[in-house]
């Protein structure tokens, strides 16, 4: 049960948190509120231990992957989705983060959510989320993965709307759900195409190479293999963009910050939003077969990275800054995927999970300490009061900014940047934009540090000191945010990059090889991005240091869904960026309004014609009802008479005769 042929069972990984959720939901009303947190934490920690067990078996045994088949779930023609699990290095990286960082966030939540009215519900969904996410990354085929994919979407919806009493939160939850659903529709189309063309099992994906060379595939109206690959890939890309908040479906993530901060840390920073990266990494063969597709992924990635960084630059709400920064960082991961640096995209996911979860949780601690204050211009001078949090936040921000040589973010981001410059799918233009984005990333990271933690308190707020569960997870994450980078030191340091080397087993020949072999150029690129990071920090010091007069005193609160927040800045460009390039407004004016007009027309047709038909049917039904109920008056002889009529009718029919 727990071991098959000496190998650890994979089903336990998602099953443990699922069991936790089940227990919490079933006994919710009979357990003390605190017990839910304890159950949830135990479930996820057991799951994490099991992940470590499976992962070490995988790595030490030098296996390529484990597969575990349980039962056939969907079996209809080409649609063969089985409940099977798959575990290779990519899975290990993702499960390690989901269960490991998830565990820390669970512990953090135990303190953060103390006394919340919906504590049991929160932990139930939290565990359920972990289970769904673990299904997503351990599934052996795309259909089973889709189960987890939708599961995390649903849990995200529930958790964003955790404080559903405020209507903005439910609106935000609905928005997040609907926008990701839009992507999911494309994902489903992609899955169906995949199922028909090669099959959904991940071990069947190399069959795409045959599709790529075939000029005619029956049943697809004359589309050639490469065209089908392009269509499937675009569908997957849109699906991934919806889930991972990439351009053009990125609008939901900033609003998703309406949920409790640990939710943002787990779901909207570390795990769920990176599902798109996982998806594309899993289908890397499909993508690598089409240069156009790769270019599309890279462009989406770099545009998103740029978009996120510029928007984060002017936000005033601490969580929204981090949200835009997440969008931007996932853009980097997409960029990595788009240039064929699959293992590096996964590596950037890995390091990002640590430092972004850290930043969110540290921000949560700050918010918690300041009694739910989220505007950074109402903070300031917290360096002395929240010393531990400050140091942890500093580590996270340094990693985000990519401070050279000592932070994980530097190594993972720089590797992607280098691949953008040097591999066959990369291009200098994209590299340039990515470098510019890196500079802005450093600026907004240190803007956060200087405005929130330095200087003097802008408002007289009593600081409520965080307890140990609110700080210790931060320290652990801070440690990883620094040292995780050493897993993949650049080759120019004269060492083997362990991460890339190991992942070559998974991505094999599809991994892009640098075309530039000059160490000098690589050193220059490396130092260049380091200088940019430090320079960004310096610019931030010039702009935001406490010695300077504080930036414009922004009046507004967080921008809400409808964008009706008064603009906090005088400059038009700043407000444009503040509202996320006014994408919400644009979508409202085009899609939402267009949809409303269309639905208005349809509603009119529905009211006049369709309802008319149904009202007619209803009238007929009522008439019949009145007729039959008329005889239903409780008089035995009346009933007997009806029966007699029935008997006479039967005999008449029989005698008149109806032979079949």
């Amino acid at each position, binding site marked *: 049960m727990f071991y098959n042929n000496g190998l650890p069972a994979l089903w336990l990984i998602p099953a443990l948190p699922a069991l936790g959720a089940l227990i919490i939901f079933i006994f919710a009303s009979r357990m003390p509120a605190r017990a839910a947190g304890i159950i949830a934490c135990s479930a996820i920690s057991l799951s994490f231990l099991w992940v470590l067990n499976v992962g070490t078996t995988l790595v030490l045994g030098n296996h390529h992957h484990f597969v575990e088949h349980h039962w056939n779930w969907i079996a209809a023609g080409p649609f063969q989705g089985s409940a099977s699990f798959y575990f290779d290095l990519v899975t290990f990286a993702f499960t390690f983060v989901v269960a490991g960082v998830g565990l820390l966030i669970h512990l953090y939540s135990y303190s953060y959510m103390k006394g919340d009215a919906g504590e049991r519900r929160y932990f139930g969904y939290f565990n359920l989320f972990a289970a769904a996410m673990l299904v997503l990354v351990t599934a052996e085929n795309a259909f089973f993965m889709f189960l987890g994919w939708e599961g995390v979407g649903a849990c995200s919806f529930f958790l964003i709307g955790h404080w559903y009493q405020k209507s903005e939160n439910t609106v935000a939850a609905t928005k997040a759900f609907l926008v990701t659903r839009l992507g999911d529709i494309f994902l489903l189309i992609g899955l169906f195409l995949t199922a028909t063309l090669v099959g959904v099992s991940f071990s069947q994906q190399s069959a795409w190479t045959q599709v790529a060379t075939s000029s005619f595939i029956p049943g697809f109206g004359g589309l050639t293999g490469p065209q089908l690959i392009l269509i499937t890939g675009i569908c997957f890309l849109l699906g991934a963009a919806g889930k991972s908040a990439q351009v053009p479906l990125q609008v939901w993530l900033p609003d998703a910050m309406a949920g409790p901060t640990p939710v943002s840390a787990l779901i909207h920073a570390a795990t769920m939003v990176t599902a798109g990266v996982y998806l594309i990494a899993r289908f890397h063969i499909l993508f690598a077969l089409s240069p156009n597709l790769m270019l599309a992924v890279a462009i989406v990635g770099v545009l998103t990275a740029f978009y996120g960084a510029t928007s984060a630059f002017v936000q005033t709400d601490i969580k929204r800054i981090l949200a835009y920064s997440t969008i931007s960082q996932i853009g980097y991961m997409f960029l990595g995927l788009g240039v064929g640096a699959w293992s590096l995209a996964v590596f950037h996911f890995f390091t990002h999970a640590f430092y972004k979860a850290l930043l969110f949780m540290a921000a949560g601690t700050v918010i918690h300490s300041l009694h739910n204050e989220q505007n950074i211009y109402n903070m300031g001078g917290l360096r002395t009061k929240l010393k531990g949090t400050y140091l942890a936040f500093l580590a996270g921000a340094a990693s985000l900014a990519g401070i050279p040589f000592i932070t994980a973010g530097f190594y993972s981001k720089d590797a992607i940047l280098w691949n953008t410059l040097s591999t066959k799918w990369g291009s200098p233009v994209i590299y340039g934009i990515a470098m510019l984005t890196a500079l802005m990333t450093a600026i907004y990271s240190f803007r956060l540090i200087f405005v929130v933690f330095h200087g003097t308190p802008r408002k007289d707020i009593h600081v409520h000191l965080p307890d140990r569960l609110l700080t210790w997870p931060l320290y652990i994450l801070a440690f990883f945010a620094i040292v995780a980078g050493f897993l993949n030191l650049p080759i120019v340091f004269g060492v083997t990059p362990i991460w890339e080397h190991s992942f070559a087993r998974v991505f094999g020949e599809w991994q892009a090889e640098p075309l530039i072999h000059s160490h000098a150029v690589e050193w220059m690129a490396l130092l260049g991005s380091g200088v940019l990071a430090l320079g960004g920090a310096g610019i931030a010091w010039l702009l935001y240091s406490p010695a300077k007069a504080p930036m414009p005193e922004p009046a507004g609160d967080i921008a809400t869904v409808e964008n009706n927040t008064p603009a906090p800045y005088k400059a038009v460009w700043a407000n444009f960026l503040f509202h996320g390039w006014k994408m919400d407004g644009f979508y409202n004016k085009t899609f939402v309004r267009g949809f409303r007009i269309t639905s208005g027309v349809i509603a009119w047709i529905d009211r006049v014609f369709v309802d008319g038909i149904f009202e007619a049917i209803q009238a007929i*039904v009522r008439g019949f009802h009145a007729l039959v109920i008329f005889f239903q008056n409780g008089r035995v002889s009346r*009933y007997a008479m*009806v029966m007699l*009529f*029935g*008997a006479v*009718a039967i005999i008449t029919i029989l005698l008149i005769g*109806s032979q079949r």
Partner: protein
Amino acid sequence: MGHYQPLLPDLILAMGATFILLLGPLRDSQNLRDFLRWISLGLVAATAATLVWVNHGMATPYPLVGEGWLTTAPLHTAFAVVFLATIAWTILASTVPDEDAGEWYSMLLFLGTGMIILARAANLAAVFLGLEVLSISLYILIAFRYSKRSSLRGGIMYLLLAGFASGFLLFGMALIYAVFGTLQIAEIRTLALATDMGPMAKVGFGLLLVGVGFKLAAVPFHMWTPEVYESSPGTVTGLIASSSKGAMLAAFIPFLFLLETHWSIIWLFAALSMVGGNLLGLREIRVKRILAYSSIAHIGYVLTGYLAGDTLSANAAFLPSITGVNAVFFYVVAYAASILGAFAALGYIQGERDLTLRDLRGVGRRNPVLAFCLLIFVWSLAGLPPAVGFFGKIYLFSAAINAGYFWLPLIGLLGSAIGIYYYLRIIVHLFMMPADASDPKVHASTLQEWVMLGSAVAVIALGLFPETIFSFLRAF
């Protein structure tokens, strides 16, 4: 014994029932009542065991025992076991005053006797005898709360109309006997298929169908259902709707050769029942009556399956391995599991006078276990997945389509769509409406709640593993 050994189950049950009837007046105490309950349960179990035992290894097509009285065909035995299970369930789920316990359990056992005779009848006389034993026990059970006027009214109505229908049935049998000169259904079948039927035989079978139609409450012989369902104790209503009809369905299987000549009558029964049952329920607010009308519709679905007969169609398109009769068996099990629970649950809820939808308000909050069970039962009755009722309908309709019927399944689907409206209304009132000033009163003992919960779980489990019912059938 030897030759009469197969009559042993019926003897055990009938004698046990008599024994309990005699024990009943001994003392009015709860201990005695509990004792009687468990002993009745034991008797039912013993009967079922004997039934399985005596039929073991006798499974040739329609062999007759006891001078041609009963058949030991596996399908009929399986039916009989299912009906015994419904009786056992009712014994557990019913509430009865201490002083009436003897009569109550005894009548339930007699009812079971009637059912297992009727379900296995191979002879017109056995059909009649089984039917009457069943009916007479039901008269008493329906009017059991004789201190209530409505109970008496329901009892007398059922008695008079059932007697009336029995008269038709009996006269039809007499005509059939007059034509064919035998009471053995198998022989009648041979003779009827050999020659063209004369008018007297046709009328005879027509009158027989009147009696069958009444027992099944098929339109136009359905008029008694609302009042009788309303006024009977909840658990009895469940039995009337499930196994009493089921026994008649089982008894009708040997008569399926009538499909050759009389299919149009059954077609009409089915169509009228599906349309009528669903229409009648629409504006009703008394919950038991809603389910009564729905049971009329359900008989329509079952008859749709019957039209497919007991042979497999060569050019079957859907689920080709399931005959119409097997689908009917499935449906009887599925329907019994759902409707018994539903009526029993309604029986536990105290209404102002007749139980209306309004009385259901607040039950979801006051007694969530019961309300949840009721939700599952109603869900299954509405034929929604994953409850077992969903698969029941699929099997019936696909069998009918395989047999070449098109309109009837279509009517059935449209009817079900209409029917969902009133099923959902029950659920809405249970959970979503604010309770009225006074809280609804729910009387259910712990045992009863567990029995309900067990049934609810079974309804879902059978829906998830529908194959179980067929493997049960194959085990005989």
